[in-house]
C-alpha cells in the first residue's frame, strides 16, 4: 500500500486517476447488530499479489462496508477515505445514496474502518478521492439497490423489470405496491450478491436526484455543538499526555538533557531521550526524529515541563540550510540558459534564442508552511502484543507498517482509528506524528497516551512547501505569437540520494511543451535537508504562478490581449482527438473555461474606476480552471481583491455547496499564501507560530463567483486545483493596476500587502 500510494503520488496525476485495483467483486457481510443488509464492494488485492502467484485473497469478516440498511429503515453509508475538510464524507455519501436511490433524510454517513482488503486504497491526497472511487461507489450503491429490488420481486412474485425505486422504496407501479428498503432489508440480506458489479446498470446523469445538488456537511451538526470528532478530542480512561521536544535545526540529536530534573516536576510521570528512527531523508519523513520525550498527567503539566527542559543539542547531524544562501546560489545559476538536467527539448531552442531578442524574467518563490489549525497529535495505546491508535492522518495505510516497525509488531497487530482531520493540505500524508506517538506509547506500555505537538513543533517540523526559482526566456514571432520558450528551473534535491525534493521537479509535459516547435525545460538542483512534502497542489501551485505570470509578461510584450494570447496558444491543438487513457490537459476544456471566466468577469468591458483584472489558467489534478481577479491597489501598495471569477471544468459536480466551499477556500488560501514565507537559517525555520506567520483572517475576503462547466467527463476532485491559478491571476491584476511585475513571493518583498 505504501508503494502503491507513493507510486500514485509520484506519477502524473492524470495517470494515477486511472489506477484501479483489480478483481473487484461484491461480498456480503454479516448484518451485525440488528441484522439487515450489509453490502460491500470487495476489492481484490493489488495485481502484484497474483503476479507473484499468491493465492486469491481471503476476504475477511468486516464489521462495516459501504451500505448498511437496518430493518427499521436506517441507512448507514460508510465513507472510506479520510475527511480533511475537502468534504469527502458528504460527497461519498451522496454518490452511494444516488445509486442506491435512498432518500437523503434516511441516510447517516460514517467514517469506515481502515482496512485495505475491504476498501482498497484509503487516503486523502492528490484530489484523487472522487476520480478513484466514482465507479466503485456507484457500483456499491447500485448493487445494494439491485438486491432490494430482487427481494421485492420475490415477495410480490413479479418480474424485477416491473419494479422501480425512489426515496428508499421499491415500487410496483402496476399494482400500486410499495415496500420500504427497511422492510426488505432482511430478505435482501439472504439473497446472493450480484455476480458482476460492472454489469449493473448505473443511472443516466439526467436521472440524478442527488448528485449536483447542495448538501450541508454530514458532520456539521456535531461540529457546531462541539462533539468530539478529532483525534485531539479523544479521551481514554487513565490516559497520559506526552510531548516530544526536537532540535529546532532539523535532524539534530540530544547530546545531554536535564532528564532527572524534568522527571521530578509536578504532574510528570516520565521523561527520556529518544534516539530516533527516521532515515535522513527529506523526501518524506519516515519515522521519529531524535529528541526528549516528556510524559505527564495533563497537557499543561507536559507543556510546562518543556519550559524547564535544558537540552544540549548535537548539531553534527542537523540541517545547516540557509535561505539567504540558496537565494544567492540560485541567482548565480539562473544566468545559464540550461540547467544540469534537461527534462524536455523540442526543436532547436538555442538557434532561436541566438537570432531573437527574448523576453526574460526570473522568478523566486518562498517556502511556506501548511499551518493547518489542528496541531499534530495522535492517541496511542501499546498493549504489548498489539497497538491501537487514533490519528488525524491523510494516509492511514502508511502508518500501519510504520507503527509496526517502530513498536516491533506485525502490521496486522496495529489498529488505527481514522479521525476527522483538522486541516490537511498534504501535511498529514506524512505520518511522522503517528510514529512519535507509537514510539512514546511503547515506552509507557498499557497506558494510552495523547502525543501533542505544540504549534511551534508543528511549524518548526513541518514538511514545508519547497521554495524555488525559475528563469524564463520567451521568443515572440512577428505577429506577437509565442514562438519559443526556454525554462530553467532551480530547485532542490536530497543531499544524499540526489532525488528531487517533493514538488521540486519539472515535468517533461509541462505546458507549453507540447504547443511549441522550439522549447527546452531544464533543472538545476541545490542540496536541501529541510523536510518538504506535498502542500495543496504540490508543484503546480508554484509552477502555475511562474508560468502564468510569465505568459502575461509575454502577452504584454507582444502588446496583445492576455486572454486572446493564451487562447491562441491552446488553439494550436484545439479540436485534436481526445488523448487515449486518462484525461490530461485538454486544450478544448482549457479554452472553454478561459472563455467562460472572461465572459463572466466582464473581461474587456469597462470597470469601476481603479479596478483592474488579471487572468490565469491552470490544469492540475484533472481540473481545468481559469480565474480572473478584480483588484485595486492603493497608494501604499495595499492590494484589495474585490472579486474572483472562477470557471471550473471538473466534470459533474457531486455536492455543489461543498464544491463552492473548496473554491472559496482555495482563493482565500492563495491570498493568504501570497504574503507568507518560511525562511530558514542554520537549518531552523524562523517563523514558528501565527504571530510570525500571519495566516489570513476575516477582513476583505473577496466575493468569489464560481461557474462550473458540468461537462460529461468523469468527475475529478476539487480540494486543490482551484488554488494554482489564483496567485498568478492576482499578480497579473497587480501589474495591470500598477505596472509593477511581481517576480518574488511573498509579495511583501516588493512592498505590497494584501488588504
Amino acid at each position: 500500500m505504501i508503494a502503491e500510494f507513493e507510486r500514485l503520488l509520484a506519477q502524473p496525476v492524470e495517470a494515477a486517476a486511472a489506477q484501479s485495483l483489480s478483481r473487484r467483486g461484491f461480498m456480503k457481510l454479516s448484518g451485525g447488530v440488528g441484522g439487515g443488509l450489509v453490502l460491500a464492494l470487495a476489492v481484490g488485492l493489488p495485481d502484484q499479489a497474483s503476479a507473484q502467484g499468491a493465492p486469491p485473497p481471503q476476504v475477511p469478516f468486516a464489521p462495516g462496508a459501504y451500505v448498511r440498511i437496518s430493518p427499521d429503515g436506517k441507512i448507514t453509508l460508510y465513507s472510506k477515505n479520510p475527511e480533511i475538510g475537502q468534504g469527502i464524507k458528504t460527497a461519498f455519501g451522496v454518490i452511494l445514496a444516488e445509486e442506491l436511490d435512498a432518500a437523503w433524510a434516511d441516510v447517516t454517513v460514517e467514517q469506515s474502518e481502515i482496512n485495505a482488503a475491504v476498501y482498497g486504497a484509503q487516503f486523502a491526497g492528490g484530489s484523487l478521492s472522487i476520480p478513484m472511487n466514482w465507479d466503485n461507489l456507484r457500483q456499491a450503491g447500485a448493487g445494494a439497490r439491485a438486491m432490494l429490488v430482487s427481494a421485492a420481486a420475490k415477495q410480490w412474485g413479479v418480474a424485477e423489470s416491473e419494479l422501480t425505486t425512489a426515496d428508499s422504496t421499491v415500487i410496483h407501479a402496476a399494482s400500486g405496491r410499495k415496500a420500504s428498503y427497511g422492510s426488505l432489508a432482511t430478505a435482501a440480506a439472504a439473497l446472493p450478491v450480484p455476480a458482476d458489479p460492472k454489469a449493473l446498470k448505473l443511472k443516466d446523469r439526467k436521472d440524478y436526484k442527488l448528485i449536483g445538488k447542495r448538501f450541508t456537511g454530514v458532520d456539521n451538526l456535531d461540529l457546531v455543538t462541539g462533539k468530539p470528532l478529532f483525534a485531539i478530542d479523544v479521551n481514554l480512561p487513565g490516559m497520559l499526555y506526552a510531548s516530544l521536544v526536537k532540535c529546532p535545526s532539523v535532524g539534530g540529536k540530544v547530546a545531554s538533557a536535564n532528564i532527572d530534573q524534568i522527571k521530578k516536576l509536578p504532574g510528570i510521570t516520565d521523561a527520556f531521550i529518544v534516539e530516533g528512527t527516521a532515515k535522513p531523508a527529506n523526501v518524506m519523513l519516515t519515522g521519529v526524529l531524535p529528541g526528549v520525550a516528556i510524559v505527564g498527567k495533563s497537557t499543561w503539566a507536559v507543556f510546562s515541563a518543556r519550559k524547564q527542559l535544558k537540552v544540549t543539542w548535537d548539531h553534527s547531524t542537523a540541517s545547516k540550510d540557509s535561505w539567504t544562501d540558496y537565494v544567492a546560489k540560485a541567482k548565480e545559476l539562473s544566468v545559464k540558459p540550461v540547467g544540469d538536467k534537461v527534462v524536455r527539448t523540442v526543436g532547436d531552442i538555442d538557434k532561436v534564442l541566438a537570432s531573437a531578442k527574448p523576453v526574460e524574467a526570473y522568478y523566486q518563490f518562498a517556502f511556506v508552511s501548511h499551518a493547518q489549525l489542528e496541531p499534530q497529535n495522535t492517541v496511542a495505546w501499546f498493549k504489548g502484543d498489539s497497538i491501537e491508535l487514533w490519528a488525524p492522518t491523510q494516509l492511514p495505510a502508511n502508518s500501519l507498517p510504520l507503527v509496526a516497525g517502530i513498536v516491533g509488531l506485525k502490521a496486522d497487530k496495529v489498529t488505527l482509528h481514522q479521525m476527522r482531520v483538522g486541516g490537511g493540505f498534504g501535511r498529514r500524508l506524512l505520518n511522522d506524528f503517528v510514529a512519535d506517538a507509537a514510539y512514546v506509547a511503547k515506552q509507557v506500555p498499557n497506558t494510552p497516551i495523547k502525543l501533542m505537538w505544540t504549534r511551534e513543533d508543528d511549524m518548526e517540523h513541518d514538511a514545508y512547501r519547497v521554495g524555488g526559482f525559475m528563469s524564463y526566456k520567451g521568443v515572440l514571432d512577428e505577429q506577437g505569437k509565442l514562438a519559443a520558450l526556454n525554462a530553467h528551473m532551480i530547485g532542490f534535491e536530497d543531499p544524499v540520494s540526489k532525488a528531487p525534493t517533493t514538488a521540486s521537479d519539472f515535468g517533461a509535459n509541462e505546458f507549453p511543451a507540447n504547443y511549441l516547435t522550439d522549447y527546452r525545460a531544464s533543472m538545476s538542483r541545490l542540496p536541501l535537508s529541510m523536510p518538504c512534502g506535498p502542500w495543496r497542489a504540490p508543484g503546480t501551485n508554484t509552477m502555475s504562478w511562474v508560468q502564468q505570470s510569465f505568459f502575461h509578461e509575454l502577452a504584454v510584450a507582444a502588446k496583445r490581449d492576455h486572454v486572446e494570447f493564451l487562447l491562441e496558444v491552446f488553439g494550436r491543438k484545439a479540436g485534436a482527438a481526445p488523448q487515449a487513457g486518462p484525461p490530461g490537459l485538454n486544450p478544448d476544456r482549457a479554452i472553454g473555461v478561459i472563455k467562460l471566466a472572461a465572459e463572466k468577469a466582464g473581461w474587456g468591458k469597462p470597470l469601476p474606476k481603479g479596478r483592474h483584472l488579471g487572468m490565469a489558467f491552470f490544469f492540475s489534478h484533472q481540473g481545468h480552471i481559469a480565474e480572473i481577479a478584480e483588484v485595486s491597489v492603493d497608494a501604499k501598495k495595499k492590494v484589495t481583491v474585490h472579486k474572483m471569477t472562477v470557471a471550473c471544468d471538473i466534470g459533474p459536480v457531486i455536492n455543489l455547496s461543498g464544491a463552492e466551499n473548496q473554491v472559496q477556500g482555495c482563493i482565500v488560501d492563495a491570498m493568504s499564501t501570497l504574503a507568507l514565507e518560511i525562511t530558514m537559517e542554520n537549518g531552523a525555520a524562523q517563523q514558528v507560530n501565527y504571530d510570525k506567520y500571519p495566516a489570513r483572517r476575516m477582513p476583505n475576503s473577496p466575493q468569489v463567483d464560481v461557474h462550473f462547466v458540468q461537462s460529461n467527463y468523469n468527475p475529478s476532485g476539487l480540494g486543490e486545483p482551484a488554488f494554482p491559478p489564483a496567485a498568478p491571476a492576482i499578480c497579473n491584476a497587480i501589474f495591470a493596476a500598477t505596472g509593477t511585475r511581481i517576480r518574488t513571493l511573498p509579495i511583501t518583498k516588493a512592498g505590497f500587502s494584501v488588504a
Partner: protein
Amino acid sequence: MLRLNVNGQERTIDGIADDTPLLWVLRDELKLVGTKFGCGVGQCGACTVHLNGQPIRSCQIPAVAAAGEKVTTVEGLSAGAQLTALQQAWIDHDVPQCGYCQSGQLMTATALLKQHPKPTDAQIDQFMTNICRCGTYVRIRKAIHAAAAATAGKGGAA
C-alpha cells in the same frame, strides 16, 4: 481545589497547577473538548469561550482567574436540542470545511451578535479575528448576517 461555573454547572477540579490555562482545564479535566487548541499564544482564537458573556481566548487566562465567574463553551451554546440561530445558520450555509476552528468562530460570532444584533460588514471584520486556515470566511460572514436576520424581530440575541 478550583471551583468553576461552566455552562451553568458548578464543577470542582483538584490538583491543577495555578498557572494552568482555562483551555486545558476545560479539555483535559472537564473533557469539554469542543474548545480547541490551535496556537497557545492568543493568535488563532480556536480556544475562544465566554467569560461572563465576553469572548476570551482560553489559552491566555489561568483557570483560577475564572473561578466564580460564568464560563460558557460551545457545548453550552444550545439549550437541549434547540440550536441557536448562529448554529443553525452555520449548518444552513454549510460553513465548515475541516471544522476545527468553527467552535471558536461560533463563540466569537455569538458575542458579536450580543453586542451588535445587526452587525455591519465592518463590525464583522473588526470582531471576527479568529483564524480559519481553510478559508471559510465568505460563509462565516453570510451565516452571521443570516442569523442576525433570523433573530431580528424575535427580540432575542442569537
